[in-house]
């Protein structure tokens, strides 16, 4: 949840970067959303379309790259990725002792400006 405040933050960061580079129009914004970040890409897109009006990104598209949940198991030593939004145990060996390598990202990675 919180797609509204996330979209607002995305627009703030993008506008700041755009102005710092001496430009005034944002054509697209690229973000990376982990599958376990708690943010739903479809909701984020919907909210972005509403909030972008009257900003430098009024005509911009939001490009979302989703990252699956991935971890490294301390039990069997193997790495794994999963479509699930949450894991309690290694899908290979069932050990609960693993560390997350990916899936909680919430980053802005690039903007296209003119």
């Amino acid at each position, binding site marked *: 949840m919180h797609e509204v405040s996330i979209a607002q933050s995305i627009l703030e960061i993008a506008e700041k970067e755009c102005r710092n580079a001496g430009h005034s129009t944002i054509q697209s914004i690229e973000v990376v959303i982990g599958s376990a970040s708690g943010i739903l890409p479809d909701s984020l897109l919907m909210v972005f379309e509403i909030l972008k009006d009257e900003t430098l990104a009024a005509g911009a598209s939001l490009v979302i790259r989703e990252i699956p949940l991935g971890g490294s198991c301390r039990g069997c030593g193997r790495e794994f990725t999963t479509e699930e939004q949450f894991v309690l145990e290694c899908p290979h060996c069932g050990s609960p002792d693993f560390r997350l390598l990916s899936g909680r990202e919430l980053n*802005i*990675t690039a903007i296209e400006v003119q």
Partner: protein
Amino acid sequence: MKINVVSRILEANDRLAMENRKLFDRSGTYVINLMSAPGAGKTTLLKKTITGLAGQIRLGVVEGDIQGTYDAEQIGSLDVPVVQINTGGACHLDAGMISEAVASLDLEGMDLLVIENVGNLVCPAEFNVGEHMKVMLLSISEGHDKPLKYPLMFQKSSALVINKIDLKPYVDADIGKIRKDALSLNPSLNLFEVSCKTGEGMDGWLNWLKETAIRHSKDSPRA
């Protein structure tokens, strides 16, 4: 023209959280972020903690609710500095709200600040506000399925206080399952079983909290 950006979207909140933390460390104030579902007993636990540690440690409180000053009034009647935040709709406290709230508190004279978050088992876990530790409260009347249903809260917390154990004869909750599931999510969780109503188990919680706060004051260099 493409500009590469290296920025976490929650960077603004986390930057403010870090500034809050620096403020707390400068004054030697240990800060806990107390979270739970509505009605688990946060304010009651806080009141019992205040009276239980009276004279031993200097406490302050930030109350977070969507609306109203009921909780702050309850704390205020115990003669402890308290600030009430009304979020007006936001379901959790964020670093900006805490930053504004603590501006009206004398942190220099405070060993322990408790931030009582908005009652909510989902969102508070996602936001750092500058606290040293998140503490979760779960009452047994909520059921023993909560840890696995709301994993992030349990993973982000350093302590879990299992409350209302006086209701054991009247509810079906399996406390052993709560402990097992919570520890499977977070093996380093400190567990306490208490009844704020009868006082059972409260000594363990109070002593641990006091020692943790005092140890921090000793360890952190004050500017």
